[in-house]
């Protein structure tokens, strides 16, 4: 199905993380919130293969629970911002004129800022919490979708079959949803996989900066942040969450590449 074998590797990794996130309460060896100061920063051993963190909590258990946060934040941000971006992009590209002008200037303004900096500013205003991280990331996440969809709509809407759909008396909404959207959805899916990786990094970054999950929550970014204080004495505290973030992001990028090759007729050599 996919020519690039890395796509399969990506799919396996994602599937692995989804399964571990779903089954965390059953497979985690310990309670991720349990504090055991006697075993603080204990290095990996046979019983605790990833060792223990600053509070003596089992890193493996926290990583398994952390997968839930990363995936839930990633999926919710990409789904909601994707829907907003698709709708705005469709309207902007289809109607053109002043609607397009206004929407695209807003897009330009948002793109002119460094994304993470704007997210930090938004979370600083809204107050640090995981929900506000999601809101901030959605507020910025729709932008690339809207821009991409708008461009695609402009190229598709001039095709004969769109004129044919209008000729047959279908409303603008039906033309957009039934005739234009299925023709551009593959490009949007590819964009979504790349965005998902970006969102996971952003969530981790914001949690690392103390703006995301509250202290003690097993978020990968927060774990990385806690690890940086003891990176020389106990590098395992930061290495494992770092590896988990890297693996998931890499996996989504592999899948994005594979999907792009598969769904783009220009690159799909049969």
């Amino acid at each position, binding site marked *: 199905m996919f020519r690039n074998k890395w796509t399969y590797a990506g799919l396996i990794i994602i599937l692995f993380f989804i399964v571990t996130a779903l089954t965390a309460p059953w497979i985690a060896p310990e309670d991720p919130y349990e504090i055991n100061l006697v075993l603080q920063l204990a290095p990996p051993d046979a019983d605790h293969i990833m060792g223990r963190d600053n509070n003596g909590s089992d890193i493996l258990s926290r990583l398994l629970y952390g997968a839930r946060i990363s995936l839930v934040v990633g999926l919710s941000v990409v789904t909601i911002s994707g829907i907003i971006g698709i709708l705005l992009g469709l309207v902007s590209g289809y109607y053109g004129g002043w609607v397009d002008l206004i929407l695209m200037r807003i897009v330009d303004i948002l793109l002119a800022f460094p994304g993470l900096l704007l997210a930090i500013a938004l979370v600083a205003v809204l107050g640090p919490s995981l929900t506000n991280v999601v809101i901030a990331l959605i507020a910025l996440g729709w932008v690339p979708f809207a821009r991409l969809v708008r461009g695609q709509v402009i190229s598709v809407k001039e095709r*004969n079959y769109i*004129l044919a759909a209008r000729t047959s008396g279908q409303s603008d909404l039906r033309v957009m949803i039934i005739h234009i959207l299925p023709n551009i959805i593959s490009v949007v899916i590819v964009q979504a996989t790349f965005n998902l990786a970006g969102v996971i990094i952003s969530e981790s970054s914001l949690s690392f900066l103390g703006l995301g999950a509250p202290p003690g929550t097993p978020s990968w970014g927060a774990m990385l942040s806690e690890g940086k204080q003891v990176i020389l004495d106990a590098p395992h505290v930061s290495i494992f969450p770092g590896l988990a973030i890297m693996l998931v992001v890499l996996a989504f990028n592999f899948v994005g590449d594979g999907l792009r090759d598969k769904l783009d007729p220009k690159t799909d050599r049969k």
Partner: protein
Amino acid sequence: MNLNRSPLLQVIDLNVDFKSEGKTTAILKEISFVLEKGETLGIVGESGSGKTITVQSILNLIPTPPLSGISGKILFKDTDLLNCSQTQLRSIRGKEIAYIFQEPMTALNPVLSIGDQIMEMIRTHESTGRKSAFQKAVSLLEEVGIPSPEQRMKNFPHELSGGMRQRAMIAMALSCNPEILLADEPTTALDVTIQAQVLELFKELKQTRGTSIIFVTHDLGVIAEIADKLMVLRQGMIIEEGPLDQIFKSPQQEYTRELISLLGGE
């Protein structure tokens, strides 16, 4: 078939301009014609003569800009199609007046199956369930001569041959039993044998359904087979019009004579 003739469509003094860099060029000049019930009007002319713009204006489909300065009247059963609401237009498009495009490959949505596209058309205008829309689509495909129609419903446009695609397009156009069919060079993209088959299909539809047809082509030979009336367009103007036999027997314009002589030469 033409027993109960009455004006169904009247185009009165239709003018369309093209505006570019401050310059205005007239694309259609004072086009007027009448289409009666059950009648087939052939519009013939060379490329750029304004044939497609004429039929697209009937459904108020011409792109503005670049086109502008649309004036005149297009009366369909007392409704002026150039001055009616979008809702009114939508209820006429496809249901009362259907359009058949030149290139079925580009006029059919590549990501939707033939069946879905016909059913979509039916369900746009009729409040019918998926099941009865499916049955209707199957019988339409059968009517236009597509073998094993139930299987073809699942096919995508690229899986059908050119002739089949055009038949599917025609089935789609017929789905709401329109009073007028606007056929914009429906045989041009097809090879000669398929062209003959599709023309035969149009003749059958004329006989069985009594649909009025406006048939646009640059090929006088095709018009000769199907039209009752002929209108010759050149540079956006009607240079000759009248009953087909009369024009073929005694063309008044040199240009029409040339077209007819070319036909003799083929």
